[in-house]
């Protein structure tokens, strides 16, 4: 039987209270959905002096369509991403990552903010958000600031939030991606309900027969979820085609640093990543032609 460590428990009733607590308490962990934190406390990874349960902050549960972007409150659950029709229609990559995320019970608890702040290299929502060039909004007593998702992950379990900052919103610009074709895929040990061995999202825009822009992001293959910049750079300006996509996908190896763990050896991860990227580029290209992200 697992035992949780002893800690002081706080349950702020609104955002201001939460920020004040965060500012005041030194060694505190934020409890959102709990699907990572409770397990990490059970296994002894974290032994915080204080736990701040932000589950009561109703003001952080929303999805708003601005016409340019989706603004998603940090406490929106993964299942809510699955169930909101605008997530499916405006940000299909994020929707696909959400439906492939663990299983129903966990999706009902886990939040988008928690998935990002936990900063697992395998964070499921990260590859789509990296492709959309999402921005996260952090709040503290001294105000708000916006952090591009590409600058958010610093290492495993490490993000660029200050000690008294709380992630409050994820902004997902979709308008700029309307002329792109895009695709997402995740490889786990089983078809679903599993941590990824590698997952990837891709988007491509073609203009006058040439690749005008390409975005590729992966998880579980580096200390943080990453953009495959070498792949992207190679593609831009080239004529799209199977050979080009295959050559591009080989460059994944210079963008990642896979490790061997219980789920897969590093060699397999890298190979799977290259195959995934090649497939996703081709699929994105097809979809770009059919007009839309599907």
């Amino acid at each position, binding site marked *: 039987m697992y035992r949780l460590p002893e800690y002081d428990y706080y349950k702020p009733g609104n955002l201001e209270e939460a920020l004040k607590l965060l500012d005041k308490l030194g060694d505190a962990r934020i409890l959102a959905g709990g699907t990572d934190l409770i397990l990490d406390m*059970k296994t002894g990874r974290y032994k915080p002096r204080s736990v701040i349960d932000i589950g009561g902050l109703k003001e952080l549960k929303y999805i708003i369509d601005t016409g340019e972007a989706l603004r998603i409150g940090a406490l929106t659950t993964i299942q809510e991403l699955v169930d909101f029709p605008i997530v499916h229609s405006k940000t299909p990559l994020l929707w696909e990552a959400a439906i492939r995320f663990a299983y129903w019970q966990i999706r009902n608890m886990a939040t988008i903010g928690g998935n990002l702040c936990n900063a697992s290299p395998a964070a499921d929502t990260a590859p789509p958000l990296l492709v959309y060039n999402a921005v996260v909004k952090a709040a503290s007593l001294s105000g708000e600031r916006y952090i591009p998702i590409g600058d958010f992950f610093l290492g495993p379990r490490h993000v660029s939030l200050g000690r008294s900052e709380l992630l409050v919103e994820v902004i997902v610009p979709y308008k700029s991606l309307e002329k792109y074709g895009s695709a997402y895929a995740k490889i786990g040990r089983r078809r679903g309900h599993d941590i990824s061995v590698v997952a990837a999202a891709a988007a491509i825009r073609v203009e006058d027969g040439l690749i005008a822009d390409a975005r590729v992001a992966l998880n579980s293959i580096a200390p943080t979820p990453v953009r495959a910049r070498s792949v992207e750079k190679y593609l831009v300006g080239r004529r799209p085609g199977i050979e080009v996509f295959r050559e591009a996908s080989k460059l994944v190896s210079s963008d990642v640093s896979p490790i061997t763990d219980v789920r897969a050896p590093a060699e397999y991860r890298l190979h799977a990543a290259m195959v995934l990227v090649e497939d996703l580029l081709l699929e994105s290209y097809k979809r770009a032609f059919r007009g839309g992200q599907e």
Partner: protein
Amino acid sequence: MRVEFILNGRKVAVDVEPSETLLNTLRFKLRVKSVKRGCERGECGSCTILLDGQPVTSCMLLTLQVEGREVTTVEGLEKDDLFKKLVDYFIEEGAIQCGFCTPGILLTAWAGLKQGRFKSVDDVREYVANLCRCTGYVKIINAIYKAATGVAGR
């Protein structure tokens, strides 16, 4: 710390430690033994309960998190017609072996039926991902899908 919530339609108040999971409060303080302690890591689904109507794993929740909320276990659905029908299909299909995973699966399936999530067998597979270690899942999936199509037919 004192926590109050609704358990199967009745208000309960119980003293808990901040580090106490809902699973342990339900089993050891409130004596709800249908909620099973399985993996305790949110993987198997045996400890599933409904929180405000949504299935969640009670091993991954602190009891303090459910303050003021509605918790439902199979005991709370005994008189529910849809639930009775679901149980009948489980019996008809023989979708039960040792029974350890059954309460969690019934709750998950009931919530899925209630929310109209099962349009195909694949939907059942996607949404009822609880683990059963006795046998295959075919009879379980069939029983749930029968209940879903039966519901749709009415």
